[in-house]
């Protein structure tokens, strides 16, 4: 009894201390966000101060990315070239693992005040960082008459904004606050790969619209009844791309109604795909056994057409047949394909000199030649139209016949034709959940796990919860 009496107050004190500690945490959280928006740096770069003397200010910048060893070696070469122009700028860079690890680290570094100067990013990461007020609007840098884009005699050789592929550039402007918060670096899109040997043997026409695709798929089904003619690797991308092509609302930047996908048109669209699936004409990764990539099923000869990321071109290569490259089929003359791949963002906390240094470095690594170099290395697309013309991208490319490098070269030769087709979805807190959820709708409905109405309703609920967390 005595024991119980003495324990009760001690437990009470323990819980009180716990509550106080939590209150303390909250306060310290507030103060850290205060310093983020404080006056240790300025919104506008101090342009006058730097006029004509960009070389005199020493700056050390840090760049966080997800590059593997081979990519880091190429980045090191670019840094050497950059330091020949700006020896006063020291650049350290490090891979932080994969994109999720990078986001987690940046998310921890923001409250701790240890953010790098610049980092690789995806739009939904930037939307998260922006909600903590951590991202620098790059408009003043882009438009600066001293170190902006497209200036004459610019040592970084960075052409004007109009040289960037419009869809890629637009991505950095699709946030809740007006401005440019990320700039493109290494981008990819989706293309359709088809079994050219099979198409040629049976005189099939490569489809350019969904209508034609289904007609061709039915033809293939009569030739090879055991096959599934068409596969789309990313369930989410198919949903989002079709919405964009058919003009169906998906998401918006309007904070009151971010999630628009729960509508009758979208449901009709899913019903249409379900019809194709039940007919045995199409599949997706989410509805395939073992979640097998459709690119894998394609190379195994189980599919005759597949849509996949250009970043993963090599996974569509097969030694058993010739692979052809075509645009993703369109809906009634639309010209829309999704834009993917990492961009670069600059953090507010850096000093003025560091931010200018980061901007100069970005201009260098994204110039016509360097963008082409990185594209050839990674298989991703260059971010500038002018890169398509460079010898690095065209004639000097090392291609070994009969290997995946041949298919990568085919893709490289194809993408300039679709450079105006890219679209991006708005990025906000919850936009990545919306992406996952609509992918889930497609997989669940195709597999018959949920009715169309239930799948849409569940997805909407998940999205609303994630945005209110």
């Amino acid at each position, binding site marked *: 009894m005595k024991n119980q009496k003495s324990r009760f107050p001690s437990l009470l004190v323990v819980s009180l201390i716990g509550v106080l500690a939590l209150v303390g945490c909250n306060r310290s959280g507030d103060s850290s966000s205060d310093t983020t928006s404080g006056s240790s740096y300025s919104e506008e770069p101090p342009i006058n101060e730097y006029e004509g003397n960009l070389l005199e200010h020493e700056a050390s910048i840090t760049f966080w990315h997800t590059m593997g060893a081979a990519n880091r070696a190429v980045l090191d070469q670019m840094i050497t070239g950059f330091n020949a122009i700006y020896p006063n700028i020291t650049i350290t860079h490090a891979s*932080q693992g994969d994109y999720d690890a990078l986001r987690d*680290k940046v998310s*921890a570094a923001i*409250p701790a005040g240890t953010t790098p100067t610049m980092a690789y990013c995806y739009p939904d990461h930037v939307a998260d960082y922006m909600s903590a007020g951590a991202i620098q609007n790059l408009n003043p840098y882009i438009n600066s008459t001293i170190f902006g884009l497209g200036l004459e005699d610019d040592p970084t050789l960075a052409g004007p904004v109009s040289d960037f592929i419009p869809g890629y550039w637009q991505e950095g402007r699709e946030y809740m606050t007006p401005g440019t918060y990320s700039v493109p670096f290494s981008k990819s899109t989706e293309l359709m790969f088809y079994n050219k040997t099979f198409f040629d043997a049976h005189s099939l026409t490569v489809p350019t619209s969904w209508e034609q695709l289904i007609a061709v798929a039915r033809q293939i089904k009569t030739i090879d009844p055991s096959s599934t003619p068409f596969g789309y690797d990313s369930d989410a991308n198919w949903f989002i791309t079709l919405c964009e092509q058919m003009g169906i609302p998906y998401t918006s930047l309007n904070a009151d109604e971010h999630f628009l996908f729960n509508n009758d048109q979208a449901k009709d669209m899913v019903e249409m795909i379900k019809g194709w699936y039940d007919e045995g004409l199409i599949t997706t990764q989410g509805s395939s056994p073992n979640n097998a*990539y459709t690119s894998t099923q394609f190379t195994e000869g189980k599919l005759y057409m597949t849509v996949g990321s250009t970043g*993963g071109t090599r996974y569509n290569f097969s030694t058993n047949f010739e692979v052809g490259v075509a645009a993703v089929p369109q809906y009634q003359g639309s010209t829309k394909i999704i834009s993917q791949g990492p961009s670069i963002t600059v953090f507010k906390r850096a000093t003025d000199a560091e931010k200018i240094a980061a901007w100069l470095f970005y201009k260098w690594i994204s110039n016509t030649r360097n963008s082409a170099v990185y594209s050839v290395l990674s298989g991703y697309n260059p971010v500038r139209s002018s890169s398509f013309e460079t010898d690095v991208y065209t004639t000097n490319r090392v291609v070994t016949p009969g290997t995946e490098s041949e298919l990568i070269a085919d893709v490289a030769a194809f993408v300039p034709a679709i450079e105006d087709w890219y679209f991006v979805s708005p990025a906000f807190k919850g936009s990545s959940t919306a992406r996952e959820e609509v992918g889930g709708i497609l997989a669940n409905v195709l597999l018959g796990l949920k009715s169309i109405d239930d799948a849409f309703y569940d997805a909407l609920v998940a999205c609303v919860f994630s945005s209110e967390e």
Partner: protein
Amino acid sequence: MKFDLRKMLNLKSSSERADARRERPQYKSIDTKSMTLVLKEGGLTAVQMETLQKIMKVISMVLIYAFLAVMAVIILLPFYWMIITSLKTNTEIRASQQTFWPEVVMWSNYVDVFDRFDFATYLVNTLVVGILSTIGTLFTTIFAAFAFARLQFKGKNFLFTLLLATMMIPGEMMVITNYITVANFGWLKDQTGVFAAMIVPFWISVFYIYLLRQNFLQIPNELYLASKVDGKTDWNYLWKVMVPLSMPTLISIFILKLMGAWNSFVWPNLVADKQEYRLITNGLRSSFSTTAGEPEYALQMAATVLVTVPLLLLFIFFRKYIMKGVGRAGIKG
């Protein structure tokens, strides 16, 4: 009153015993060889019962071993999968039908790993962090456990409750606050600082303090009093008596902590922001990707096999101590 003890105990006198011998019937000699004694219980003879017992024993052994075999397969399957993945080509790893044995055995994956993976740096980093954090933990644990088990001071129980209460907070919740703390200490700027950030926050383990305190409490008071009579200080008693007596627990804490440091991922991944500061687990995750950023699972698994071997050997050779120490405190770790 006179008690006839013999009557009370129902014993026979010597004359009565002689009468009884005379009255005993005289048996004919019987051929016992042709006789069988049949004992039956539940309608079964002894032989049948013996057979039945044997059958039951066999069945139960079969069931037990079948259960153990199934469990062993479940536990070993990930290891097996790791090994075969390390020997497959990337095409086979991505195949829609997975195979239980590689079609082409790629021993070259192991050669490639040595070119691509900086074993020496990661191993040295992991050992430095592992050993320093383990030694630090042992010291804090011994002192704290001694205080809570042996010393008498005001608020002892309260403090101990407070410590135990912190076990209710999941470690993940402290990641951000710890990160902010080490960042404010200025530890994230150079290698020494980053190593300190990976070591110091893990010097205190409430679970090990609790484990060792329970162990210390089992040491009889008499030993303490005897050492006091001998004029020993608490310090001497701790190191000369308690620590040697608790050696098995301390060894298991040492091993568990070292294994924990070896396996730790989230925290080192967060604080070590340069390739050369990374520990082995983070190195494994971040060292193998194609130029397009796709993970190369075959190489990753080959490196994982090479890294898992030392830990497996550690466990095999020291499992006696691990089991002994944990078993003693009556707690499964």
